[in-house]
């Protein structure tokens, strides 16, 4: 029901998430932000079971900030992704596993942009593009077909729009709007909120 997507370019990462907070068949909120800012250049996108998402994401967020306070410098996106995965793995076989699916997007001074795919079984994969949710089935092939490692910002945005139009066209659930953010060497930017044509 929820949807996350990330596309890595040469010097940026573009991420988007839908804005619906649903409770059985009702849309409780239509402007929910599913992106959590771990630091100036790291975003965590989190979907999954109610309650677990916010609690887990905020837990990771506070711990990343604590690291910065203690040590004087921030964790890199790779370190943050591995830290997150370790926490997911530790809780996986406990009595209270976190049922969440994540995308972590970040920009590192030395390594450049990075997009990390994590799921509720605590798998971790660094990928050039990734998606979560039922919508992923419809859009991953589009990403496979049209993705190039040297995408410009506009081209990546167009690719994202293509994916969202496909969702609007074929996905049974109406996802009226998507939050979009872009991370590059200058930090996190909010280009625009995407509202697919024809969606109310």
């Amino acid at each position, binding site marked *: 029901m929820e949807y996350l997507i990330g596309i890595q370019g040469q010097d940026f990462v573009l991420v988007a998430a839908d804005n619906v*907070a649903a*409770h059985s*068949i*009702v849309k*409780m*909120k239509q402007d*929910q932000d599913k992106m959590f800012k771990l630091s100036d250049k790291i975003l965590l996108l989190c979907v999954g*079971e*109610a*309650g*677990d998402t*916010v*609690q887990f994401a905020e837990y990771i967020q506070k711990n990343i900030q604590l690291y910065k306070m203690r040590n004087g410098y921030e964790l890199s996106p790779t370190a943050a992704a591995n830290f997150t995965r370790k926490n997911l793995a530790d809780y996986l076989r406990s009595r*209270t596993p976190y049922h969440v699916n994540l995308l972590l997007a970040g920009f590192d001074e030395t390594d450049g942009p990075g997009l990390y795919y994590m799921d509720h079984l605590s798998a971790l994969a660094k990928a050039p593009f990734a998606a979560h949710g039922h919508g992923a089935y419809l859009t991953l092939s589009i990403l496979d077909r049209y993705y190039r490692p040297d995408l410009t910002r506009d081209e990546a945005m167009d690719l994202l729009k293509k994916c969202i139009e496909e969702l609007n066209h074929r996905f049974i659930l109406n996802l009226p709007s998507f939050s979009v953010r872009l991370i590059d060497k200058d930090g996190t930017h909010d280009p625009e909120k995407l509202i697919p044509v024809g969606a109310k």
Partner: protein
Amino acid sequence: MALANVLQSESVDFSNYGRKCRGFSSSLYETELGLESVGGDNLSFAVRTACSDGDGPERKIQFLHGTTTLAFKFQHGVIVAVDSRATAGAYIASQTVKKVIEINPYLLGTMAGGAADCSFWERLLARQCRVYELRNKERISVAAASKLLANMVYQYKGMGLSMGTMVCGWDKTGPGLYYVDSEGNRVCGDLFAVGSGSMYAYGIVDSGLKQKDLTVEEACDLGCRAIYQATYRDAYSGGQVNLYHVHSEGWNRVSQSDVLMLHQQYQAEKA
């Protein structure tokens, strides 16, 4: 609501236990052996299995979210409207339940799900809010209060708590409305309806809120109307409509109207 339901279901279960087993054995008797059981004779060729419905000795507490509660923000604050019916299965246990919990003079909480869960945790929340006030010498914000509640119940996630509540109030940032439930959801919004009759209520309030800038009276009427329509369609909602208005000075109880009276009134208006 839930307490009546638990007691009811315990007793009903015992009688079902006997009935079920007898039914099981007699039908087997009749179908397989083609013989009629002699009245009073406890002879039975059927295997007496434990008549459980898969839960074993730990019977799952059946919580019925038979209620309609709603709250919405508008220009002059927050309107909170609730029904007052408590059901235990098909039996109406009470028509005069208070489903709005007064946390403190400027915070309200609504009740849906287990009555004991809602009133206990919201009372605990009231205590935490007071401690915050004493420590920080200022009123707690609605966001913080709802976060306290959400974190408290998250620790019991999966253990059978049933609570769907809206925390409504007015703080420094203006009117505040949060939906918090025992699943761990905590969502800020302008309009929420919770309970079995919630969808009927959404229909009315969504269409009524389209015209912006309601007066206090219009907003109260809308809330009242929405609950009435929900009680009309939903069997598990009814009784009276309790209406509260939260504004900058705190909350005040606007009205308590019997749903049947409202029915007469609205029918007369239609004619």
